[in-house]
């Protein structure tokens, strides 16, 4: 049985369509990624999966339970972490966990034992009596995950889990997630706009403007882009694009100041361009296609639209 079934789910905010009939399944015990730029509908989908919004059309099933008919049944199965931290800064790590446990009907000795377990699992036991507001971003995120594991959910939903984390903390976080998936058989569903995170998922759904544009393993998706991927940085990309199409019959995609093209034998092409069009480019990069290339090929635009990082909230 799939852990999550998303069946023709559409969602509107007034006139604006956020999701246009998306369908996919997530298998139990897999790490599944929803990849898309800001505004692709992935956060909307995330909120629908976490039972925070009513489903307008289509069907969402989690662990075999229909999300609109049995929201409380679904809520028992899922552990959710949001982009904005849900820890109470004025409480210690342990107190945060205790309150969370009460919300799920845990209490007394059983709760205490469970708190110890999840803190050990996420390696935050030594922070138990520290106020949550004094923790670093990475630690907060780990406590956050410990918190949503308390009631032993079968499915973990994480919205942009590495937002605001430095690479080291990001790495630790993913190790923790992968060990949960391996050792406890937890299904992990993350939304992300970061390549690096997407590469660590078993399967990915690519979303763009509310549509599912591709679904598969990262390798399968990369195969959608044939051969090598060549990126050329140029001062006058339009002029260069004309040259390329005139001389080599190549059609390149323009992304900002760069041109991007795919070629069976990129390594030969790169020397030809370098010898025949010297001085027209600043740099050329040849590589195996990345998920970013897949995304660009399918949509014509970049995945990682650089979004302003949310300013650190001031303490109240």
């Amino acid at each position, binding site marked *: *049985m799939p852990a999550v079934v998303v069946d023709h789910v559409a969602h509107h905010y007034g006139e604006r369509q956020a999701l246009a009939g998306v369908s996919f399944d997530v298998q139990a015990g897999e790490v599944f990624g929803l990849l898309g730029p800001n505004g692709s509908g992935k956060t909307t989908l995330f909120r629908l999966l*976490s*039972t*925070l*919004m*009513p489903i307008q059309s289509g069907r969402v099933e989690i*662990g*075999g*339970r*229909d999300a609109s*008919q*049995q929201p*409380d*049944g679904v*809520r*028992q*199965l*899922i552990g*959710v972490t*949001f*982009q*904005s*931290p*849900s*820890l*109470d*800064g*004025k*409480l210690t790590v342990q*107190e945060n966990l*205790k*309150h*969370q446990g*009460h*919300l*799920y*009907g*845990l*209490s007394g000795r059983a709760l205490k034992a469970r708190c110890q377990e999840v803190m050990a699992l996420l390696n935050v036991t030594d922070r138990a009596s520290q106020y949550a507001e004094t923790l670093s971003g990475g630690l907060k995120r780990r406590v956050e995950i410990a*918190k*949503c594991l308390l009631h032993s959910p079968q499915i973990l939903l994480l919205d942009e889990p590495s937002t605001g984390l430095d690479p080291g903390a990001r790495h630790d976080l993913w190790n923790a997630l992968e060990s949960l998936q391996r050792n406890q058989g937890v299904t992990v569903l993350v939304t992300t706009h970061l390549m690096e995170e997407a590469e660590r998922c078993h399967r990915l759904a690519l979303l763009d403007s509310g549509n599912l544009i591709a679904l598969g393993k990262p390798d399968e998706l990369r195969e959608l882009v044939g051969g090598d991927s060549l990126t050329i940085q140029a001062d006058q990309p339009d002029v260069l694009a004309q040259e390329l199409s005139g001389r080599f019959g190549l059609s390149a995609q323009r992304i900002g100041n760069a041109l991007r093209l795919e070629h069976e034998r990129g390594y030969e092409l790169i020397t030809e361009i370098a010898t025949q069009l010297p001085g027209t480019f600043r740099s050329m990069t040849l590589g195996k296609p990345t998920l970013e290339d897949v995304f660009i090929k399918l949509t014509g635009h970049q995945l990682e639209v650089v979004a302003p990082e949310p300013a650190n*909230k001031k303490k*109240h």
Partner: protein
Amino acid sequence: MTASTVSPLSPPRHAWFWASFTLAWREVVRFLRQRSRVTGAIGQPILFWILFGAGLSGSFQFGGGSGTNGMTFQEYFLPGVAVMIILFTSIFSSISVIQDRNEGFLQGVLVAPVPRSSIVVGKVLGGTALALLQGFLFILAAPLLHYVGLAPPISLEFTTTGILGSIFFLTGIAIGLTALGYLFAWKIDSVQGYHAVMSLVLLPMWLLSGAFFPGTGSLWLSWLIRLNPLTYGVAGLRRVISRPSADLSSLPPMWLCITVTVAFALLMLVLDVWITRKDKTVK
């Protein structure tokens, strides 16, 4: 595959009780850890009581002038200050609704399998417990200010009925005001916006409750006071703690005080639960 084939997870036991209790407890702990809040909520009203009391005592008349049945302004103002402490405490605890929402704490609660009404009950009872504690301590401690020369002698009725009665009214007022604050806070997305409501609605409501002045001199003012549900809580509290000789004939009767205070508290709670359930796109 249908839902019925899934092994049923038993729903959390006593979910409503645990959720309400834990949210209320969190409210109390949070408040006590923020010293500035404690001082703000209790310090300012006491300061008002001392300063206004000293400033206005000469020009005040209530309950038959300055004879044996009359009251000093400090005596008159005392239940009003207790209600002000309750007002400030409930304002602070409902402001936290806005913070919880903006900081994501509320989302964490909303994805848990807890009845929505327990979110309201937890918040309101937490605020009420704090307000009651502070208001009651003030009533017990205020007469002592006389001994340090900050207030005239206060004669209050500290009988069992007086104490139980004041706990009753303080609780009723605290539930009503905290629940009213919740109602505003649920609809307002910034703390700044809430401050506007505080100055334009909540403080005038206190001012026009007979807490600060009887307002019997002006017709329109006396009507505003009569229409204000808080008036009846203040009057009830005044009735239970004033000494028997005081002339309170201008206050609404006790049965009306009890009815309005209880009805207002219940109505606000029901509205809170309704607005929380109705809101399906809680940010």
